[in-house]
């Protein structure tokens, strides 16, 4: 019988959310089957309902969330109507979850080893010394070095990638039948991302656990799953084997996602053709040094003898792992940080604007779009920017005119980033320094933003220093890539 083989059967699941703006349908009629040991990648952009789908399986839709309709059958149990006792016995034991943000997902006040051992204790699988030795074994299995020391350390003593390994060990602890991995590599830098993917694959092969792997990044799905389901607006719009989806996508949306995933790779269209070298240099950096004091005597060197030139009308992509000093460089160029030594030669009369990394926090919550975009004008001239001026740049960055009186939290991530760009160009700068402007955005928004940058550079002839850790997107638009090694 087919039903016996199915580990998870979701039928016509509808989950809604009660927000201040009214009821939002997060999951709108999803059906999905998963056999034992099978893995599927659930691909979709933020707001597509993929996280809610996973939370529903765990019975953790949270406050305001409601499963309206449908059924979730896991291993013969109906989960939608299941009581809290049954769900508690399944969570962590039969179904476990790896969360997106490893920094926040671990309890900062408990040694990591105890957090792993806790799973065993909750489900009565081991206690005391046995739990400890089992937890150490698990830490070894996810390749955490020096387990004896690491066991009793706290999350703040672990790097992002190491924290994610701990989170994976927690998910594996009780030997679950199904692991839900919610964007487990998002926010990690390139190499760490690959390491974590390798680890997840190894775990899957060793334990034969079924997995639902949620991601917005199509470029990694082939590595983690045989099957792919594309989700959009709470529905699964296309499902098939990874090979089939990539070779013959049916849905228009899927095709678009695949196109974005190929950016920077052979076969994709490219904007880097018309190179304009030999123009005037606008920023010339020679032997730049910068370090930060650590305590009284030690210091942390971030930039050591760093050289870089940026010419008019050029996009320079600056890539490197997190912590290699990219943001510090940007701040030094803009004069926000003081350099320790070296030269930053900015050609006379050249005006520089910076776009910051986290648009969620870079804006004042009480200001409207009009005020935020007009702010540089007000600072420079003491007068408020004219509405036509604001509207002109809003048009230029393809921001709908209706948004002019919105507050930052009423905007999407992509819209906020456009506001940041509009604010940067309103004073007609010659150079824009953009510090990780794509972080936290969906691939579609990322693609739109990089194209917008390209358009602005071509139209206005300004220079762009584009800092990112996402190499493909940068390669897609940059005239030149500079890799930072770090000190």
């Amino acid at each position, binding site marked *: 019988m087919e039903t016996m083989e199915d580990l998870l059967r979701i039928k016509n699941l509808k989950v809604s959310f009660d927000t201040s703006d009214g009821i939002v349908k997060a999951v709108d009629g999803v059906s999905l089957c998963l056999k034992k040991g099978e893995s599927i990648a659930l691909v979709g952009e933020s707001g597509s309902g993929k996280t809610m789908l996973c939370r529903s399986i765990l019975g953790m839709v949270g406050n305001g969330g409601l499963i309206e309709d449908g059924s979730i059958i896991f291993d013969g149990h109906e989960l939608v109507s299941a009581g*809290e006792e049954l769900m508690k*016995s399944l*969570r*962590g034991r039969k179904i476990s979850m790896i969360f997106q943000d490893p920094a*926040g*997902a671990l309890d900062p*006040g*408990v040694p990591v080893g105890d957090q792993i051992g806790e*799973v065993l204790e909750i489900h009565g699988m081991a206690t005391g010394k046995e739990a400890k030795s089992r937890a150490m074994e698990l830490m070894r299995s996810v390749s955490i070095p020096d387990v004896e020391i690491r066991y009793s350390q706290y999350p*703040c003593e672990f790097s992002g990638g190491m924290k994610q390994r701990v989170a994976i060990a927690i998910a594996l602890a009780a030997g679950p039948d199904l692991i839900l991995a919610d964007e487990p590599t998002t926010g990690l830098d390139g190499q760490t991302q690959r390491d974590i993917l390798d680890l997840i694959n190894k775990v899957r092969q060793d334990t034969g656990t079924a997995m639902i792997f949620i991601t917005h990044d199509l470029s990694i799905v082939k590595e983690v799953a045989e099957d792919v389901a594309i989700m959009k607006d709470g529905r699964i719009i296309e499902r098939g084997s990874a090979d089939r989806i990539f070779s013959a996508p049916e849905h228009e949306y899927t095709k678009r996602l695949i196109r974005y995933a190929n950016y920077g790779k052979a076969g994709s269209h490219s904007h880097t053709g018309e190179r304009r070298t030999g123009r005037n240099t606008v920023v010339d950096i020679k032997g730049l040094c910068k370090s930060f004091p650590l305590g009284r005597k030690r210091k942390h060197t971030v930039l050591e003898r760093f050289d870089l030139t940026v010419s008019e009308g050029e996009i320079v992509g600056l890539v490197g792992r997190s912590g290699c000093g990219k943001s510090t460089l940007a701040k030094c160029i803009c004069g926000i940080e003081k350099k320790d030594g070296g030269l930053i030669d900015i050609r006379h009369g050249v005006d520089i604007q910076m776009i910051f990394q986290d648009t969620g926090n870079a804006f004042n919550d009480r200001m409207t779009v009009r005020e935020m975009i007009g702010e540089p004008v007000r600072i420079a001239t003491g007068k408020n920017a004219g509405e036509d001026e604001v509207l002109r740049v809003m048009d230029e960055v393809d921001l709908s005119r209706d948004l002019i009186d919105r507050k930052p939290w009423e905007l999407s991530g992509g819209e906020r980033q456009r506001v940041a760009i509009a604010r940067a160009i309103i004073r007609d700068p010659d150079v824009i320094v953009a510090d990780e402007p794509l972080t936290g955005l969906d691939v579609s928004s990322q693609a739109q933003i990089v194209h917008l940058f390209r358009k602005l550079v071509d139209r206005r002839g300004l220079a762009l220093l584009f800092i990112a850790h996402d190499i493909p997107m940068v390669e897609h638009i940059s005239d030149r890539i500079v890799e930072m090694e770090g000190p």
Partner: protein
Amino acid sequence: MDKSTRIYIGKKLLQFVISMIVLILVVFVVSRLAPGDPLRAYYGEAVERMSPEQLAHAEHRLGLDQSLAVQFFDWLGQVFQGDFGISFQYKRSVMDVIGDVAGNTAVLALVSFIIISLCSLALAIFCVRREGKTVDRVICKLGVMTGSVPEFFMAMIFIMVFSVILGILPQSGAVSVGGGGFLDRAVHLILPVAAISVSHIWYCTYLMRSRLSDEMSKDYVLLCMAKGLSEKQTVYRHCVRNITPSVVGIMAVFLPHLLAGAYVVEVVFSYPGMGKLAVESAQYHDYNLLMMVCIITGATVITVNIIADIIRRQMDPELKQERGQLL
């Protein structure tokens, strides 16, 4: 104890010494600058009948004719020999006067402190687990109401209800005439402790409640639930444990409020304690007594805060990683 902890504690001790020096200096100067006549405190009405020579002699005897700096170092020298001077008003050693009543205040403050700490935390947990529900909202409103009533007024209401109308609890003093047993003292404590606690509990509860509420919206709470912990287990095993350092901090910052409250309540209840001494000594310009009351109070607050800092650092792994700044 590892090296960084020893360094940290060393820094904190240095901080203590510096704070104490500043406190003593300020207290000394301010008490001397306060208007009033210390001779009147010492000699009472007799001052008005004294000749100028007698006045000069009296000033000299009490050291009041010297410059402020000389007075300060004289006084400091005596202090280091264990002589804190005499109370002008009581004509006894300051330490004897304070020693008679300090225990009363310590009991009153300590009992109130423990009750407020425990009740606030319990109330905060209770409210956060029911955040936004009717019972939480009712408690919040009630808390704002009780917290808005000043303790002296609260004390008067309590005296009115429990002593005057119901007649079940004593309205003043620390012991009954002829009494003094444990039960007798405990009965006398009930109303002052209640007045202090009721008017201060909400302040602490409110701070702890918002701290715990923040903690419960963190991502690790989801992971805890996903591990199979119930909401209750998550709250007690993880969230409450993580806010304990903050609770210690909140209570340390709260201590001066509590002491000030206790002093006021002591006056209303004619409870023999530091509060009564503080008010009287300020009223009668009893410098030595006033200074010692201020210094002991200040030293208590400084000591408790430094101990709290050390405890917090030991409890919080993230604080432990940071290097403490001296000031």
